[in-house]
């Protein structure tokens, strides 16, 4: 069954004709060409597809698009420019990007952690351990994340 979905993505309202069984990831990539969100497994195991739904990181490959009506969705393309500039600068300087396939998911997580506000009880490794990276050995990703969070320590 297809019907019209009303989705708010990156501050923009979309009307999308879609069947009920489609995931948010499919709608983002296939219908809206928002291909920054990556497809790594489709089973909730890799974190490449993480987006923010009402500010909370969610796996878009496991989220049905219909459940996102009335919610605010933020993908990597929708991170406000000022914040993105800072994230881009730090990740680039730290050398936290190699093939880049895990990067949008990592960026979303970093934005989330930053929004939560850094405090010492936060276990960054734990928070990021659902995001796989096969290239970097994680060190530079962790360094970059710590640097971003330190800038926003509350």
């Amino acid at each position, binding site marked *: 069954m297809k019907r019209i979905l009303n989705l708010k993505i990156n501050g923009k309202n979309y009307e999308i004709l879609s069947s009920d069984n489609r995931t948010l990831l499919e709608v983002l990539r296939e219908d809206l060409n928002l291909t920054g969100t990556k497809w790594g497994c489709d089973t909730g195991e890799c974190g490449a597809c993480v987006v923010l739904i009402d500010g909370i990181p969610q796996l878009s490959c496991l989220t049905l698009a219909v459940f996102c009506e009335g919610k605010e969705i933020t993908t990597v393309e929708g991170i406000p420019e000022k914040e993105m500039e800072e994230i881009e600068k730090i990740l680039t300087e730290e050398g936290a990007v190699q093939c*880049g396939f895990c990067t949008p998911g990592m960026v979303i997580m970093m934005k989330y952690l930053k929004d939560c506000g850094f405090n010492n009880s936060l276990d960054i490794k734990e928070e990021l351990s659902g995001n796989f990276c096969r290239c970097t*050995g994680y060190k530079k990703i962790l360094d970059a994340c710590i640097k971003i969070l330190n800038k926003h320590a509350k």
Partner: protein
Amino acid sequence: MQNNKKFKTVGIKKERIDAPSKIRGFAKYTDDFYFPDMLYGKLKRSPYAHAIIESIDCSKALEIEGVRAVITGKDLPIKYGILPVTQDETALAIDKVRYVGEPVVAICADTEEIAEKALDFVEIKYKELDKVLSIEEAFEKKHVRVHESEKFEGNAHRVISLEFGDTETAFKECDYVREDIFFYSGSTHLSMETHSVVAYFDGKRLTVYASHQAPYYLHLILSKALEIEQRNIKIIIPYVGGGFGGKLDPFPEIVCASKLSMIAKKPVKITLEREEVFYNHRGRHPVLTWVKTGLKNGKIRAMHFKSFLDGGAYGSFGVACAYYQGALQPVTYKIPDYKVQTVRFYTNKPPCGPKRGHGTPQPRFALECHLDKIAEDLNIDPVDLRLKNLTEPYSVTCNYLKITTNGLKECIEKVINESKFKEKFRKLPYGEGVGFAVSSYLSGAALPIYWGETPHSEVIIKADRSGVISVYSGHTEIGQGSDTVLSYIVAETLGIEPEEIALVLRDTDSVPPDLGSYSSRVTMMMGNAAYEAAMKLKRALSEAVSEILEESEENLIFKEGKIISKNNPEKFVSLKDAIKKAEEKFGALSFSGSYKPAPILGKYKGAGVGPSPAYSFTACVVQVKVDTESGFIKPIKVWIAHDIGKCINRKNVEGQIEGSVYMALGEALMEKSDYTKEGFLKNPSFLDYKTLSMKDMPEIDVYVIETYEEKGPFGAKEVGQGPLLPVIPALCNAVYDAIGIRFDEIPITPDKVLEAIERDKKRVGPDKIIDFKFPEPIKVEPPKEDFLQNKL
């Protein structure tokens, strides 16, 4: 010499050129391309490890609305393979299947859903055959023939038997001889991006977007498999989301998407599901290794390796992997007399092939653990044993490999001092330990896969009156940072910023050939070609500017987008004006650079595997803590020093080393392709195929040793693969130091540790090799002392 100069970009700047677009999600990977009217393809795979295909009925699938084309093996009958010597694959199985997951039918339809549903309506009748799933079975079950046509018995695919010098006599001269047996389990690449392809045939020409590491080989093989002339094929490689060797073969989905598009006359996309990537595989071969070393007065006198490879169902790069089992040991250590015997078997599992380190991690693991035992037997320090036997810079090995710069001694000193190895070795409390190992690797294979005299890398540079400088290259960016290397080299040469260069990349219609991202070749080969091209442009600009400024060409400096008189900094021309002037003078400004390695030195059969323009060297110390209650091994810290020649981008070099450490620890501790008795892969998912997460990673101290290799661009050598090699044996040696148990088999999973402790075992690992009769070795006389002087 390039290396004495003060650089502005090379080794100084940190930023990767491709990072911003990847961070912002703009960077396009193959699956990110959607075309109007695009169809989706799916593959139906074999549920049997070995079976005759009795019949295939696709009629019901074809009736489904939205299905546009269905193909079987009969539609693609021509055999192909990445190596000219093993043309044993077809995209879809014909007559029989050889592993669980082998593609048999391909379908394309209007949507993925329809294609998927249509697969269920394909009826295939199989007759199961007996199968072989291990080295032992392949050898013993002689009635099973994975490939009927193979000339060797017992499913042997390739047999190698080589002897440099006279090992029999040499072993007799030794005052100490030791033999050991090791087993290295197979593992897989697991790139984050799954394989993806979009193919479009417009009636005459075929355009293929693919996540692939070597577009020019793909070009060649697609032409063969599809019977289209190469000039009618265009390949575009977008960013690749990780490769590690897993995207080098001409994979079935690429051939199938192309064929389906030729029939349906529409673009066809196939993106593999995560599980399917495990069937594409071409990952690390499981290898059983026997090694015997003889020493005289603490120096290696003779060495003998026997290796048995579990190759999976097809050839892939297997012959090269087999040769690499023996090729690089003499690059690390002086081995006067050396014998190498290797056999690769076909088995009914997904094909093995090249994974980071190619065929060298298995013998490296064996050798470095073996040397640790030798040092203990002889009661000498394991570091001293290494130091006493290292090869010299600018020397030639017994198997005719020419070593140029060699910073291994410095690497060793660095990690030993920094880790305080000598204070810890055999002195830490029970459960804690340190281990040490070293290695060497190639900076690009000196021979291409398809032999010939054409360059391995070509780069074109173009400048015009607009001021735009464009660089055209066919190398692939799989995450290793070669786009950055390319732009840094050109930027340094022309005195501009890397971001100012327009890169035109990876479209076989537009750019000149580059053999691809494998064998750690790109910095060396593409880098040299880029340097040559940029220097030609620089010379043309110098000539033009010297007229304007009335200054000799030698007195011009290229700096900050200007060309400046050395004598009078007030006198300068902007690069844009200089380009305009040169264009007026010479016409179109387009220059090319090419790179081809020097001819190899060895003349024997097999001499083609191992030679490289230069070798990288690595030394590593690993410290571990073993929880004897749970059997869990925790790597605490890794110290690793790598002779890179010269860093082009330091952050990137460190990143390659850290990524190698991560992958190596995974292979040592948990990564394993695990099959059931029926030949089913037990763990084809991120969840079940265990790897280290961020939480599991130890602290890593990286030391970059610069030896300024004159063959490399600005002195650079490789870093993408070499640093993986010593980490695995260093970890095993550390575990021994911690709990006194030798693990001669990896991965060292907690259950193995617990069992060993409970049963009070001193060693875990295979205790016998198979009784394979190798043919008499090809005898090769090692080079004489003065060989290099006579030769070069």
